[in-house]
């Protein structure tokens, strides 16, 4: 019965003069999402509404699932639209709608009309009461409840007349691409894909960097990260994934610095490298999956020490989340199963038994001086050998 979807967006509505920029971006993202679906669709914006209209056969669930990945959408309403052929015809259309969508009629309802076309002969209130009457006359089991109805029947009078009663929640947020671009430090763990998802939700486009330590981490570990990026890209659009060979840097740090500080110094170099790539690719910030106190490298002292090496803002959307809350989101966005595959990754292959949890920045900096001889060269080599994978 449904051949179109009315797309509701919440936050974009209050953007004032810039609103059209967000709406256009949203239309673009919706077009991108429905392209993945079977069938042909027309996506258009009119009178502050966005419609997705199917021009051919399509799979209802598939379209809804894909629309649910578009940030900026607050609700997806399957609508029926009819031509305006007089009031009597509208009554018949509405009875037909109720008959098909709610075959078991034992329900309460409320009509909620909206007259966008002001030359329509009846006012909204009049439409409400007239159509309510038609329904009550024809469906004796149905009753009116204006406070908590089972069915909220929306009738919108525009060029055509739109009828809908269901609002499927969308992901909310802002359309990807309206908020600039940032560089996600992506690992094989649970947290970083979630962090990327959360920042993308605010309209930010995502690039990613992964630190690979061959031969000690395997091709499977790398494939796992590509798979994770692919899952996240459902929401964010294509992701440019930079794979950096980190082995020599890691071994060199291990050779020259105290083992307890390996992780923290390693993370400082990861941030430095990520920032360099971010600068070259017009990213405006870094994104990490850190959350306070989760591991030794995520205490306030450690975060401060890690943060000290970069001038770009570092976004940490999970900073106040508990592990369970992070797991919940990763399950929702479907990355959990992949994240828990047990391949070693460069953060786990060589770890000190007792990593320092309250690093002293001055001491860390002093130990980093041990690296002076070769580190710049190693970082340059790693950057030069950056392997770019476009994940979509």
């Amino acid at each position, binding site marked *: 019965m449904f051949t179109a979807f009315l797309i509701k967006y919440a936050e974009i509505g209050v953007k004032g003069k810039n609103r059209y920029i967000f709406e256009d971006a949203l239309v673009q993202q919706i077009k991108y999402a429905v392209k993945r679906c079977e069938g042909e669709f027309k996506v258009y914006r009119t009178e502050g509404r966005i419609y997705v209209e199917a021009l051919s056969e399509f799979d209802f669930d598939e379209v809804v699932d894909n629309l649910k990945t578009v940030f900026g959408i607050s609700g997806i309403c399957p609508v029926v639209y009819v031509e305006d052929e007089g009031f009597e015809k509208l009554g018949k259309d509405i009875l037909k709608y109720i008959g098909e969508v709610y075959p078991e009629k034992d329900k309460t309802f409320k009509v909620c009309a909206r007259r966008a076309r002001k030359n329509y002969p009846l006012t909204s209130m009049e439409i409400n009461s007239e159509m309510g009457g038609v329904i009550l006359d024809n469906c004796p089991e149905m009753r009116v409840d204006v406070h908590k109805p089972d069915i909220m029947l929306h009738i919108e009078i525009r060029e055509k007349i739109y009828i809908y009663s269901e609002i499927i929640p969308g992901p909310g947020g802002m359309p990807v691409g309206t908020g600039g671009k940032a560089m996600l430090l992506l690992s094989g763990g649970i947290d970083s894909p979630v962090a990327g998802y959360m920042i993308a939700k605010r309209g930010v486009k995502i690039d990613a960097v992964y630190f690979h330590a061959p*031969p000690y981490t395997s091709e499977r570990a790398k494939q796992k990260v590509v798979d994770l990026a692919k899952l996240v890209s459902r929401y964010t659009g294509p992701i440019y994934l930079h794979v950096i060979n980190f082995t020599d840097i890691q071994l060199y740090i291990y050779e020259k610095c105290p*083992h307890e500080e390996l992780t923290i110094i390693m993370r400082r170099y990861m941030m430095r490298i990520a920032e360099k790539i971010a600068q070259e690719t017009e990213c405006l910030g870094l994104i990490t999956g850190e959350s306070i106190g989760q591991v030794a490298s995520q205490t306030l002292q450690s975060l401060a020490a890690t943060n000290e090496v970069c001038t770009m803002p570092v976004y940490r959307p999970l900073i106040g989340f508990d592990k369970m809350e992070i797991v919940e989101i990763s399950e929702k966005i479907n990355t959990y199963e992949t994240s828990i595959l047990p391949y070693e990754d460069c953060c786990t292959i*060589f770890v000190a038994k007792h990593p320092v949890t309250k690093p002293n920045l001055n001491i860390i900096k002093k130990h980093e001086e041990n690296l002076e001889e070769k580190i710049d060269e190693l970082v340059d080599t790693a950057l030069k050998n950056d392997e770019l994978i476009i994940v979509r």
Partner: protein
Amino acid sequence: MEVYLDNSATTRCFDDVAALMTQVMCRDYGNPSSLHLKGVQAETYIRYAKETIAKALKVNEKEIYFTSGGTESDNIALIGSALANHRAGRRLITTEVEHPGIMQAMKHLEEQGFHVTYLPVDKNGIISLEDLRRAMTKDTILVSIMHTNNEIGALQPIEEAGALIKKVNSGALFHVDAVQGFGKERIYPKKMNIDMLSASGHKIHGPKGVGFLYIQENVKIKPIIFGGGQQNGIRSGTENVPGIAGLGKAVEMIYTDLEAEVNMLYSLKQLFVDGVTKLENVTVNGLTGRDSAPHVVSVSVRGIRSEVLLHALEDRGIYVSAGSACSARKPQPSATLKAIGLEKELMESTLRFSFSVFTTAEEIDYTLQAMYDIIPMLRKYTRR
């Protein structure tokens, strides 16, 4: 140099096996159930494979059934016989170190109301016959014990166990998972009181996806796969003729000169064990001499995580396994290593090296040399 030392996971196919399979797939591709000549030709391959296997085991050809491999053989044997004999009792016995093909089938039977006793093993991975005797009761209907452990190469006292089982309760069936042992040692079910025996093609240089189950003539089995009634209804489905032909050929080739091959494997194993234990803080799990499998060595390298060493060896072209391939992709520690009481730190530092008839002394030397280079280097990065 490429050195493949993961033969317990799978082996390279013999060239002659592959050639025969190509011929079956491209020329003699009939369905053995068809009445015409093409069907009869296909059947000939099955008959020949059956004869070869029956001869190797000294059993009747009628007692050989082809399956999709070790796991299916284990499942048919365990579930099929338990369901057929549950009126005689609902007690089953197995060990703590079995392959998932047995473990998961047993878990399934437990859910169906059967009671399973899991026999513990000693530090070498071997069960005690006394434990087995104590576990046996009048209503025990089935005992399943693996022949050769896939992770540490422990050999179970199969012949003694068979005699014991029949002495205590002549009605109890004895199943042996011989996936790792078949083709490494002569196994004679009749002499060893084995009622059912599972084996797989790809562990003996045959193809993957094919194996067999020996079922002693008088054993009652309920099928777990239903269909066209092929293979006496015990395993319906069109036979995997190329696979079966390949399996038969592999058995023929491996058993032609078995003693010489096995002697060679033992000498390679000795060479490797002697070499590897020269390294400090490196230990070998389980027995290493003639009382262990000729082709498996489990090595714990204290302080180095197995995946790190595995990939470092891979970098030199050497392919080995962490624990066992069947469980390497799961986060749980290996059941066998746990059962032999290995401390946790060592479980995470254990690699399995497994050899085949293609392995050479030169490859062993190359591997040892690589370990002499890599392990001290990685030790520098050991957790402290």
